[in-house]
């Protein structure tokens, strides 16, 4: 049995491999479409990459030489096909400005874990708080708990990150001095580049809380968690609010179904009925929201990282657009698109596991 067969055997009880393959194949046109849109927008945007690289004082000959080197004098269709080929190999060349001389791939590999860490904590907070809040709110409909949860959720959805972020910094960092305003770890702490596993030296992940755990450095972990708390709260509030609202309405619909009444009539306990029959069915629309929400979290990371000065993908994309560093913009946008589509694939798989009818 080769590894592909082994993988199929592994996932078969959960979801048919054909379903996954079909979904994976559909990712190709999605990424191809995103790459085309990125190419078009960057070519329609004003600005000359040659001037960005050589500076305003460069001579016409120097600028022309750079344009030839970058392939900007080639026919557009050739540039387009070459761009798509490079995008397929995830090779966007070198950064012009924000990390001059370094490859875009290395810029992304340095900064992606930072954004992913933030998005994962935000999503985890959303799921861990949103689901129970939604269930409690639905079970105790029209009680004080329900009203408080609903008002809280509505507030969470209504408050934008660019407003809540500075406000939390002002309250918890400036006035109360409880959390740091920016950064990822105390400036006096330094982490090595590698960690040891059974005598083998392995590179760190770039996710600082995970790295500090791998290194067994408690002081660094506490400092990283301390620094990450406010950004994660800011990014998690919206997620929590949306998930709890969806869970409440979905749960309310499910608990009024005949099969729940039948289960109760047959003598099954209220909690067991709710969790065994109600929760799984109520989860189906919520899973979709969680998937779409991840895209919003990545978008939210752009704002959160800008507000908290975290040098992740979000801040990188903002800076790259600001200085017209096109290769970095192309690379980061495509990475975001790839992440979003992969998360949605995961959602589809989860969805079809929860409701096998979807596979049809």
């Amino acid at each position: 049995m080769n590894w592909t067969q082994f993988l199929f055997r592994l996932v078969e009880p959960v979801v048919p491999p054909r379903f996954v393959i079909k979904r994976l194949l559909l990712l190709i046109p999605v990424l191809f479409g995103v790459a085309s849109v990125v190419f078009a927008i960057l070519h329609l945007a004003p600005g000359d990459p040659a001037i960005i690289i050589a500076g305003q004082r460069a001579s016409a000959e120097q600028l022309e030489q750079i344009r030839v080197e970058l392939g900007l004098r080639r026919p557009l269709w050739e540039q387009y096909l070459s761009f798509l080929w490079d995008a397929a190999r995830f090779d966007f060349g070198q950064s012009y400005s924000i990390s001059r001389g370094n490859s875009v791939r290395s810029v992304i590999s340095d900064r992606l874990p930072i954004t992913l860490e933030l998005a994962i904590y935000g999503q985890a907070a959303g799921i861990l708080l949103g689901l129970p809040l939604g269930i409690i709110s639905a079970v105790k409909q029209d009680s004080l708990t329900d009203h408080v949860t609903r008002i809280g959720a509505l507030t969470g959805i209504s408050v934008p990150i660019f407003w809540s972020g500075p406000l939390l910094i002002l309250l918890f960092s400036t006035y109360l001095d409880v959390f740091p305003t920016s950064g990822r770890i105390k400036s006096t702490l330094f982490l090595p580049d590698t960690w040891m596993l059974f005598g083998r030296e392995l590179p760190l992940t770039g996710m600082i809380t995970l790295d500090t755990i791998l290194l067994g450095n408690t002081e660094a972990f506490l400092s990283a968690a301390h620094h990450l708390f406010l950004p994660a709260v800011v990014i998690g509030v919206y997620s929590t609010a949306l998930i709890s609202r969806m869970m409440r309405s979905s749960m309310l619909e499910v608990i009024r179904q005949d099969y729940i009444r039948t289960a109760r009539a047959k003598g099954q306990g209220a909690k067991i009925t709710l969790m065994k029959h109600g929760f799984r069915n109520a989860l189906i629309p919520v899973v979709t929201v969680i998937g779409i929400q991840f895209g919003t979290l990545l978008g939210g990371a752009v704002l959160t990282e800008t507000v908290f000065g975290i040098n992740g993908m979000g801040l990188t994309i903002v800076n790259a657009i600001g200085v017209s560093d096109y290769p970095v913009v192309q690379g980061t946008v495509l990475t975001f698109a790839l992440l979003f589509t992969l998360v949605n694939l995961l959602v589809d798989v989860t969805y079809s596991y929860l409701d096998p009818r979807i596979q049809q």
Partner: protein
Amino acid sequence: MAQRGDPPRLRQYVAVRARLVGSGLVVGLLLGGLGMAGWTFYTGDAQSSEATVFALGALVFGFGLLGWSGSILAGRGIEAMQEHMGTRSNWTERDSRRAMARLCGGGGGIMVGTSIVAVLL
């Protein structure tokens, strides 16, 4: 492409799709060619005209492709949601997919048309 010996169903399958994308492609070719010629006549700079019209074609092509794959990925779900919510809409996954395929063809046509006219100019 469908061959003479292919079963009729497959030939029909390919023909319907080819006609759909092809009609968009023809319109795109005309639009791209005329757009490129007109823009060059207006600005007097063939290179920048090619860049602008080709990029617009790539934009249309990209959106078409995204819309087409999006319709396949989420179209049925949206239809089911509309049915579930009882909203009266004529939107269907099939219509969306077909429209997006035509848009894709149009965008591709603009790109090809622009490149042809750029070579001729």
